[in-house]
Structure formats: C-alpha cells, structure tokens
C-alpha cells in the first residue's frame, strides 16, 4: 500500500512537472511567433514605403479597370477611427477605384461615419496623398452591415414564401439561385458581387459580409486600420490584377 501511494505521488509530481514544462514550451513558442510577426511587420513597413514612394516600379502601373467592385471590411472597433476611415476612402479615390463605373462596398461603419463618408459622394476634390493625384467627380459608395447578410436571406425567404406558397398551390415550387437573387433585390438587399474584398482588422476573416455576394471574391487581409499604409493597398490591388480564376 505504501509503495502504491509512493508510486502515485511520484506519478502525480511527474505529471505536474510535465504540464508546467508543456505550458512553458507553449509560451516560448508563442513568444517566438510574436517576434517573427514583428519582424515581418517591419519588413512590410519598409516595402510599403518603397511602394508609396514609387521606387518599386512594378507597382507604378496598375490595371485598375480589373477591379469593378471593391469591398472593404473594417472591424467595428477599428472603424471608430473616423479619420482613418476617411483617409482610406481618399486613398481609394486617388487610385482611381471610386469612379462612376465602379463601386466601393464598405462594411463596418456606424451611422455617423456613413453620413460623413456619404458627403464625399457629392464633392469634387483633388485627392492628395500619393503620386496618383486624380480629379474625382463622383464616388459611388454602398454601405453594408450584418443585417445585409443572414437576416436579408430570411427576409427574401419570407417574400418567396408569400409569393409561391399561396393557399391553394397545385405544384410545389422549386426555388433556384435566381429566385433568391431576385428576392434579395426586391427586399432591398441586392447588389453587385465584389471582385476584391480588403479586410482591415487583426485577422483575415470576412466578418459576416453578405454571403450571397462573395462567392468568388478574392479576400485579402491588409492588417489593422490604425497602421494602414497606402503601399499595402497598392500591393493588394496589384496582386489581384494578376489572379486568374477558372470558375470550375
């Protein structure tokens, strides 16, 4: 019995030491990862500065016409930095993304920010801040939120129910994707599918952008809004212009 208790004590002590060792190794691994990401961050800052200054010639000429619809998702906490949001919109305008034939779809802004950003729609301005200063006439902006995603599909479903499930139906309807698209449009939640979705936040995650509209959208993570750089925006759009999709 004493021997059994001793063995149990030793095993228990070994297990506690083992767990502590595992925790320590885990902390060390994450410390190394954080140092690595910090180093990557510094390298990105240098690269973005070179891009912004025009020294990296491959980024000077971008075929912006390939981006018909650009979406931007901003983390709701980060979107409180209104000045940063407006700066981003000015950058997008300066690149030439926000023209009459193109639309920017923004998710994550609150009411007052939408109101402020909407003012840009009716202004003519020469946008500064890059080598690509352009006269901007009209900026086409669409604002979406979580309500445009899953709740919108539920509303569309109710519209289809009211339309197709009359009190005396002879044949069961067979919904198609076109029916859902039309229903979404009818309830006010239609819209184009963006080609490119830029995520401003700590994690690469689309944060609930309307599911129906991002089937083949390239989702690119830029980084936190507070440390956004013009060069990273250029790089993301440049990379997108090189992408080829099979659609099957």
């Amino acid at each position, binding site marked *: 019995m004493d021997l059994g208790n001793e063995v149990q004590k030793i095993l228990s002590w070994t297990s506690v030491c083992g767990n502590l060792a595992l925790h320590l190794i885990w902390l060390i691994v994450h410390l190394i990862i954080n140092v690595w990401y910090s180093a990557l961050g510094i390298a990105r800052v240098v690269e973005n500065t070179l891009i912004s200054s025009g020294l990296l010639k491959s980024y000077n000429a971008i075929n912006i016409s390939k981006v018909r619809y650009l979406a931007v998702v901003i983390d709701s906490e980060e979107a409180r930095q209104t000045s940063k949001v407006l700066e981003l919109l000015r950058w997008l305008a300066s690149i030439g993304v926000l023209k009459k034939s193109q639309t920017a779809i923004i998710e994550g802004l609150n009411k007052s920010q939408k109101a402020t950003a909407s003012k840009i729609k009716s202004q003519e301005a020469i946008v500064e801040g890059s080598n690509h200063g352009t006269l901007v006439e009209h900026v086409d902006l669409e604002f979406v939120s979580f309500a445009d995603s899953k709740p919108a*599909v*539920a509303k569309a479903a109710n519209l*289809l129910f009211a339309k197709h499930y009359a009190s005396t139906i002879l044949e069961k309807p067979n919904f198609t994707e076109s029916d859902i698209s039309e229903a979404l449009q009818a309830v006010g939640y239609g819209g184009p599918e963006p080609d490119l979705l830029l995520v401003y936040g700590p*994690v690469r*995650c689309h944060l609930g952008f309307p*599911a*129906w509209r991002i*089937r083949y*959208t390239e989702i690119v993570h830029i980084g936190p809004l507070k440390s956004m750089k013009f060069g990273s925006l250029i790089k993301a759009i440049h990379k997108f212009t090189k992408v080829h999709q099979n659609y*099957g």
Partner: protein
Amino acid sequence: MVQKGAPLHKGATLRKITTHWKVHNHSMTIQSEKVDLGARSCISSRVDMEGVNGKSVGHLFENISSFVRQCIFSVLNVGPVPSHIAFIMDGNRRYSKKQNLLDGDGHRAGFSALINMLKYCYELGVKYTTVYAFSIDNFKRRPGEVASLMKLMQEKIDELTQEESIVNRLGIRIYFQGNLKLLSDCVRSAAERAMVKTSGNSRAVLSICVAYTSTDEIVHAVQESCEEIWDDIRKREVNNAEGNFVGLKENGKDENEHRVGLTDVDRHLYMSVCPDPDIIIRTSGATRLSNFLLWQSAHCLLYSPTALWPEIGLRHLIRVILDFQRNFLYLKAKKKQS
C-alpha cells in the same frame, strides 16, 4: 494491431504510459500504449524485432514520427484548439503537371494528403473536419475528367468504409453534404452506404462536400424552411376543418409566427450537423472561398498556404493552429457580438 482511441475525459492532463510485454514464438513483441488525455488522442505502436528488414525500419520511422507528432500536439493542446477545420483541396491537377504524373494521379495524391490531414486533426483533438471535394461548378469540366473523378470518388468512398480503414479505426462518422441528386446513381449509393456504415462512429465527424456550393445550400435551406412552414399551416387547416379548432392563442401560433426565421434557415442547411468552422484552409495560395461555407464562415480564420493540396503537411497545420491561438480571443469576441 492498431487500437481505437480510449474514451477520454475532458480537461484531463494526466499522461499515462503502460508497457505490455509479450513473448511469442522466439520473438519479442513490445506493445506500448500512450494515452494522452489532454490531447484526446491515442497512439499504438508496435516494434517487431524479428530480424532487420524494410518493414521494421518503416514501422520504426512511423513510430518515431508519431511520437514527435504527439509531443508537438501536447504542446499545442496547452492553448485553445479549433473544434472544426475545413479544407478546400485546391491544386491536385497542378500538382499532377508539376510532378509529370498521369491524369488522375494528382487526385490520388490528394486523397493521401486528405487521409494524413484527417489523422493529424484527429490526433490534435479537432472533432469536426470538412473537405470541399467536388463543387457543382466542377461539373463544367470536360466530361471525361468529371467521369474519372466520379469513378475515383466511388473507389475511395468504398475504401474509406472498409472495416480496417482509418475512418473506422478512429471512430469517424462520415457525412456527404451537397445536392447528392446531381451525382450518378453509383456514387450516390456509395455515399449513402458510407453514411449508414459509419453512423455508429462518434469520436469525430468528417463532412465531405460533394456536388456542393454555398449558394445551392442556402437555396435548399430556404426551400426546406418554406416547406416546413407550409406543412404547419396545412396541418392547422386540416385540424380546423375537422372541427378541432384550436384558438390562435391556445396553440401558441398565429399568422405572424408562420414566417421563415433565421434559425429556420440555419437548421435546414446541409452543414447544420456541425458547428461553424473555426478555420478554413485553402491550398495553392488562392484567396477566395469559391462558394464554400459562405454562410458559416463569418468569424472564421481564413488561411491560404501557397502549397498545392497534395503538398500540404503537418507544418501547415501547426502554423494555422498557432495563428488561431494568437487570435482566439478576438474571434471569440466577434462570435459573441453577432
């Protein structure tokens, strides 16, 4: 003999090593079983000392790599581990061209990669794994290629459901998610057989998305929700007609409640058997979801390694798990907000 994982207690961290000796026919068989309750995994290894041959060297190598893997997973299990990982298996054809293989061999290599990832996910403690095997859009490919893919799929489904396959050894239940009516009869039957044969397994879940797109899934869910509401209304009407009039308030339902709600659509999705994925991994560097789990991926970490699917390995899984752990609190907070 490989043993199935022993039942594990949640949160337990005790490491138990037992050694079992057996002498048989002038050969010594050492069988050791390691049960790491914290990692929710069980490995069983056998070192056969009957002479030195290629088989025993192979076993030895497998045991060593398994041991190293277990050590790595023990460290990873100190932090949060995702409960659901989804994979978009992109790059099989490019791998085939890159390695100068015959058509179809890239997909076979992809299947081996799938089995490895399934094993790693199981050992790590990831309960739900989902793979995007065949999209509805893939039917647009050359008929010859589609037919060959269907044939390979049927062959691999039958392999997976055999008694000694990894799926049954590890106690994994298989679901085939998608518009299965679009599949040929033999593939659909093989899929249905696999689901029935593995219905008794409960340690982990593998969802294979075949003839699937997210938009088709949403259409199906909306249709089913409408059908359910319609059936409810019909039943009430029948009750009323038979004189079993139930007041509007007595049965708790009125006209306003005969509406499709968000939870109704959620319930009727193909993927309602699993929680939302924590991580979606798409290989070959592409940054789009290609109509995969669009509804379920609102707060999901997206990862796009440049490796082609048959090249995916343990290092990619470790990397994304570490990323997940770094951002776990943020993703958890976002999920709560919604």
